[in-house]
C-alpha cells in the first residue's frame, strides 16, 4: 500500500511541475520571437526570490489569492462553477467597510464584526445564484456572471450614497475604519520593514477549515459525492438541492473574506481604487491547485510571486511585465491538460494493477472443466 501511495504522490506532483515547465518553455519562445533578452528576464524574475521585500509582498498578495481560490474550490468540489466570487467579495468588502467604519468597538470585536459581516454578505449574494439554480434551474455560471455585473453597479451606486468627505477630491470611498478595526501587519520576513497582511492568519485558518470540512466530515463527503456523480449522490441519500444552496453559501462566505486583508490591513476604506478581479484569479489558482488546500496555497504563492517579480522587469530587463501574464495563462492551460493526462495515466495504471492481482491470484477462469 505504501508503494502505491508514493507512486501516486509522484503523479500528483508531476502535473503542475510539468505545466510550469511547459509555461517557462513557451514563454521563452515568446521572448525569443520578439527579440527580448531571455536570460535577463528569467534572472530578474528569479532574483525576486532572494529579495526580502518581494517575499513579504508575495505572502501578502498570496493571502488574498488563497481566500479567493478556496471560495472557488468549494464550488468546484461539488461541480458548481462559482464565477461570482468577484462580485461577492467586492460587495462584501464594501458593506464591511461601511459597517466597520461607522462603529466604535474594542479591537477584537471590531475586527470580528467586519469579518462576520463580510462573510454574511458574500454568502447572501452567492445564495441568490444557489436559490435560482434549485428553484428555477438557472445555471449558476450565468447567474453569477450577471450578479457580478449587478454587484459592480450596486457598489458604485452605494459608494456615492455613502461616500465619506475625508478622502480627497479625486477619489470617493467609505468612512475610514478607526484604529480598533485595523489588523496590523506581521513582520514575518526578516530583513525588510515590509509587513505581511495580519489576516494571513485568517487565510491559514480558512485553509485548515476547508481541508477538514471536505476530507473529514459527512457534509464534505456529501459535497464530494455530489461533485463526483450527482445521480449516485441522489441514490445515496444526498439532498442535492440542499447541497447546492449550502455549497453556494459556503463559497460565498469565504469569497466575502477575500477583500478583508486589504481592507483591514492597508486601505482601511473601500474606495474606487479597491482591487477588482481577484475572483477571476481565484478560478485560475483553484484549477492550478486542483482544489486541494495545499495545492491551492502553492498556486497562490506562485501567482503572487510572478506578480511581484514582474514589477521590476520593465526597468531592469526592458521587458514588458505583461510577459508574466502570458506565462500565467499558459500555465493554467497547460495544467488543465496535464491533469487530464495524469488522470488517465493513473486510471490505466490502477487497472493494470488490478489485472495483475487477478492473474496472480488463485485461478483464472480459463481452467474451466469443459
Amino acid at each position, binding site marked *: *500500500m505504501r508503494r*502505491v*501511495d508514493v507512486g501516486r504522490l509522484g503523479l500528483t506532483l508531476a502535473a503542475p511541475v510539468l505545466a510550469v515547465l511547459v509555461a517557462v518553455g513557451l514563454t521563452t519562445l515568446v521572448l525569443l520571437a520578439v527579440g527580448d533578452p531571455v536570460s535577463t528576464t528569467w534572472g530578474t524574475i528569479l532574483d525576486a526570490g532572494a529579495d526580502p521585500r518581494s517575499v513579504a509582498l508575495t505572502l501578502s498578495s498570496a493571502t488574498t489569492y488563497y481566500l479567493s481560490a478556496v471560495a472557488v474550490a468549494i464550488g468546484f468540489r461539488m461541480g458548481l462553477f462559482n464565477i461570482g466570487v468577484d462580485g461577492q467579495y467586492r460587495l462584501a468588502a464594501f458593506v464591511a467597510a461601511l459597517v466597520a467604519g461607522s462603529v466604535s468597538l474594542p479591537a477584537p470585536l471590531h475586527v470580528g464584526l467586519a469579518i462576520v459581516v463580510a462573510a454574511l454578505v458574500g454568502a447572501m449574494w452567492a445564495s441568490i445564484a444557489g436559490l435560482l439554480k434549485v428553484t428555477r434551474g438557472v445555471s449558476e455560471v450565468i447567474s453569477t456572471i450577471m450578479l457580478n455585473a449587478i454587484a459592480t453597479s450596486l457598489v458604485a451606486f452605494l459608494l456615492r450614497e455613502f461616500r465619506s468627505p475625508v478622502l480627497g477630491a479625486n477619489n470617493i470611498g467609505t468612512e475610514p475604519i478607526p484604529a480598533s478595526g485595523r489588523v496590523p501587519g506581521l513582520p514575518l520576513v526578516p530583513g525588510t520593514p515590509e509587513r505581511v497582511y495580519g489576516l494571513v492568519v485568517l487565510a491559514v485558518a480558512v485553509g485548515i477549515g476547508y481541508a477538514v470540512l471536505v476530507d*473529514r*466530515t*459527512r*457534509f*464534505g*463527503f*456529501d459535497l*464530494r*459525492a455530489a461533485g*463526483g*456523480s450527482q*445521480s*449516485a449522490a*441522489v*441514490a*445515496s*441519500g*444526498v*439532498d442535492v438541492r440542499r447541497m447546492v444552496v449550502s455549497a453556494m453559501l459556503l463559497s460565498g462566505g469565504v469569497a466575502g473574506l477575500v477583500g478583508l486583508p486589504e481592507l483591514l490591513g492597508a486601505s482601511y476604506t473601500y474606495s474606487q481604487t479597491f482591487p477588482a478581479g481577484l475572483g477571476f484569479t481565484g478560478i485560475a489558482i483553484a484549477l492550478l491547485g486542483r482544489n486541494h488546500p495545499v495545492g491551492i496555497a502553492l498556486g497562490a504563492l506562485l501567482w503572487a510571486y510572478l506578480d511581484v517579480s514582474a514589477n521590476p522587469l520593465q526597468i531592469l530587463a526592458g521587458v514588458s511585465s505583461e510577459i508574466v501574464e502570458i506565462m500565467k495563462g499558459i500555465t493554467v492551460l497547460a495544467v488543465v491538460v496535464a491533469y487530464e493526462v495524469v488522470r488517465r495515466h493513473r*486510471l*490505466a495504471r*490502477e*487497472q*493494470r*494493477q*488490478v*489485472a*495483475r*492481482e*487477478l492473474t496472480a*491470484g488463485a485461478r483464472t*477462469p*480459463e481452467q*474451466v*472443466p*469443459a
Partner: protein
Amino acid sequence: MSEPSTVEPGAPVPTSEAAAPAVELAGITKRFPGVVANRDVDIRVRGGTVHAVVGENGAGKSTLMKILYGAQRPDEGTIRIAGRDVELRSPADAISHGVGMVFQHFMLADNLSVLENVVLGAEGRHGIGDGARRRVLELSQAYGLGVDPDPLVADLGVGDRQRVEILKVLYRGARILILDEPTAVLVPQEVAELFANLRALKDQGLTVIFISHKLDEVITVADEITVMRRGSTVATVLPAEVTARQLAELMVGSELPSPQTRESTVTDVMALRVEGVTLRATDGRTLLADIDFAIRRGEVLGIAGVEGNGQAELVETVMGMRTPAAGRVLLGEQDVTRWSTRRRREAGIGYIPEDRHRHGLLLEAPLWENRVLGHQTTPPNARGPWINRAGARADTRRIVERYDVRTPGIDVVASALSGGNQQKLIVGREMSGEPLVLIAAHPTRGVDVGAQAAIWEYLRQARADGLAVLLVSADLDELIGLSDTIRVILRGRVIAALDPSDVSPEQLGSAMTGAGAPA
C-alpha cells in the same frame, strides 16, 4: 479452447453455396483491464442466413459485436468478410465493408421525419431530396419493410422505429446486419413481424447476425446458432437439433449455477408494504398505477416485466427518489412515504441499483469511499458529523474479504475494478449493517458467472436471516429461482401474481407481454 465442442455445420444446409462465408472471425481475443472479454472466438457466418449468437449477460456477445462493427479493435485474431481479411478501425470502416449495426436502444431523432432520420449522416449517398426518397422507398419495398418516409419518428411505435433503424443501415449499403437484442423492446406480434422482416432480408441474400438470450426466439428464427460462454464460443449448432434446455446448458456450462432457493423462510412479520402507489411523470403520463404488494421478513418478492414497464420507477419510488401522486410506502408499521432517501436508508433499506455506474458508485473515488456512499451517516462510516475513516476502511477490508472482491487494495478507484467485482462491493456494502429490506434491481446484470453464483448465495443467506428482498430482474431464471412470489408488471400496472414453484420461464415470459393468463 482445449476441448472445442464446436459442431461444424457439416451437413450442408439447403442454401449453402461453395462461396466463402460472409463473415469469418478467427481467434478473436479482446482484453480489458482486469477481464478477458473475448478469448479465441471463432464464428463462421454463411451468407444469406440468420445466424444467432447467444450467451448469458457478460458472456462477451456485445464486445464481439463491437469488434465486428468497428467500435473496438481486437487484441488478437482476424476478421474476414467475404473471404478477405479486413481491419475495421471504425463503424464507418465497417459499413464500407457492408457491416451495419442495429442497436437495441434506438438512435433516432424524434423531431425529424423517417426520411430525415435515414438520410442523417449519409447525405453523401443519395443527397437529401428526391433521390434519397426514391432510394428509401425502393429499399422499403425490396425488403418488405413497409416504411413510410414522411411521418415524424415521434409518432411511430416501437416496431416501426426498429424498421427505420434497419432501413438506416441498409441505406448505408450494409449487406451484413447485426441486431443486438432486437426483441427486448417488442411485444409478441411485433416480434413476429420482425422475424418476417428478417426472413425477407435473408431471401434477398443479406446476412443477419442476431444477438439474443431468448432461446425460444433464437430457435425459431436462426439458421445456425453460436453459443458463447465466458468470452469464448463453445458451440455452433443447428436449431433443428437442439432444444431450448440444451442451449441453456451450453450457455451456462457444466456447473449450471442454479438460483434455486431451498425451503421457504417467509415469516409473518411485515417488512415492506406498498399500498396503491401511483406515480405520474411531469407531463401527466401515468408511470405507475395503483401498485400494491407486501413483503414479509425472509421473503423475496420478484418483479417481472419487459424492461421499461415501470420497474425502475417503482424502485425509485420505494427508495424515495421519486414522490408518488397517491398511495403509501410502509417500512414495518411506519409510513415512510414522505421520508427522504437518506432517512429510508438509515431506517434499514439497502439498495442495489440497476445501473451501478450511474447510481451505485463514485467511479473516481477509492473503494473505501465507495463503502461510505449511501451509508454516510451510520457506523462504522460516521461518528457524529465526522466521517470515520478508520472505521470505514476497516469495514471495506471486511467486505473485500468476505465478498471476494478481487482488488489489490481499498485505495484503488472503483473504475479500476471489473463489473463483477464492482457489483460484489455494492452487494457487500448494501448487506452491511443488517438491513431490514433490500431493493435489488438486476443484481447480477453484466456480471460473470462466478460472481453471479456468489451474489445469489449472499441473497439466499440474507433471506434465511430474515431479510425482505424486492427483486427486479430481467433474468427469468433468476426471478423464478430466488423469488418466493412473483408480480408481473406491464405498463406501470401489476397484471399478475405468480407462484415461482409452478411457473416456467416460458410461461413467465408470455405473462410479461400481457398474453398469458394469470396463474
